[in-house]
């Protein structure tokens, strides 16, 4: 019993230490701080209640990422049929705020990452934001390492093109898209 309790404490500490990385990851998928926050909260709570189903403690982060992804997919499924008026993306042409943010490189890169397909965005954010090894990405996404490598390669190629194009055009804010089927 005590052994289990120590294990839970250790895993909890580790999760908390990585909380901000999970938040960054969720933010990169959603572009919305409140939603990212809620998803991380939900995922960490689920993880905390499911430590017994984690077979290998060294895979904690990859395992938690899968939970986070599922939380995000569930959220997308729930809202699939409704589009809030406030969420609707109007053209930002001529919008001074959008133009000011277009000057910000970080915001521009985030917009480009949001335009990637969900598969590409997943792999690039897991490698660059979560600093996962290819093996950990493979575990988190449940795909072979070879697929991780080829997907990452295509993702970076596409991101490079998007950034090159974005630096020459006035940009509008974009919400990341993810297929939920």
């Amino acid at each position, binding site marked *: 019993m005590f052994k289990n309790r120590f294990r839970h404490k250790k895993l909890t500490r580790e999760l908390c230490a990585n909380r*901000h990385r999970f938040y960054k990851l969720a933010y990169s998928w959603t572009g919305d701080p409140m939603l990212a926050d809620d998803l991380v909260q939900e995922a960490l709570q689920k993880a905390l209640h499911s430590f017994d189903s984690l077979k290998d403690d060294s895979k904690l982060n990859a395992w938690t990422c899968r939970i986070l992804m599922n939380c995000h997919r569930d959220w997308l499924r729930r809202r699939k049929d409704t589009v809030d008026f406030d969420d609707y993306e109007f053209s930002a042409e001529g919008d001074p705020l959008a133009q000011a943010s277009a000057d910000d490189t970080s915001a521009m890169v985030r917009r480009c990452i949001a335009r990637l397909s969900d598969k590409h965005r997943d792999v690039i954010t897991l490698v660059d934001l979560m600093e996962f090894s*290819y093996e950990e990405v493979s575990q988190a996404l449940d795909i072979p390492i070879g697929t991780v490598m080829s997907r*990452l*390669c295509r993702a*970076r190629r596409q991101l490079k093109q998007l950034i090159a194009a974005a630096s020459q055009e006035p940009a509008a804010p974009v919400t990341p898209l993810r297929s939920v089927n």
Partner: protein
Amino acid sequence: MHDPKDNPEVSDELLNSFVDRQLTSEERQEILHRLKRDRALSERVCELQHLKEMTRLAYDDIPPSRLPRRPIEGPGGWPRMIAAALIFGLGLLLGMSGLPQWGSAEDRTAAPGASRDRISTKVLVHLSSADRQSALNTLGSLEQMLAEYRQRGEPVRVEVIANGDGVKLLGPDTPEIAERIAALSAEYDNLSFAACRNTIEQLQLTEGLHIRLIPQVRLIDSGVVEVIRRQKEGWAYIRG
């Protein structure tokens, strides 16, 4: 896993693995060897590193999470709830300001940093050129400034970050600067020196330079990222 010798064209997959440090040391050495001879290949690596750095940096200034203030409840049941109630009651009695909160390691390390944050003067000195005289002048000015703050009893923190050609000045090959850095570091523990690892690797690839650093200089992954971070934290920026 990969053998570049079998394939004269280095694939993008392999270069990505190199940039992401996913290769074995032998594979890495082989790529490094090729990079010395192949400028186009070196440019491809630079582009990938740049892209990776931009992606990492893009999420550094996102709105902060509210999560540290929101406790995450693990499985516990009644015993834990009773214990929590007891602790809460005790806390009220003792006049505690709040309950322990969940937070990241960064939050925890921020606690000792809180005293550091009370230091109102934080100065970042950016060394990016190999001009020896200019660097010596900068170190001289720093010494004067540190002495003045010490005399007035005012806390100050100074960090010197070198990238670009600036890293060439932080090795034993420029003894007049190395001695000055060693003396200043011994005298002032609120002064630190850091050099950009990306630059050092690039200089090795493009100019074949093997930069050695004196022990007082620590290595950081990216000088540019550190400079931007410090500026966002409100550090005063001085170009050395």
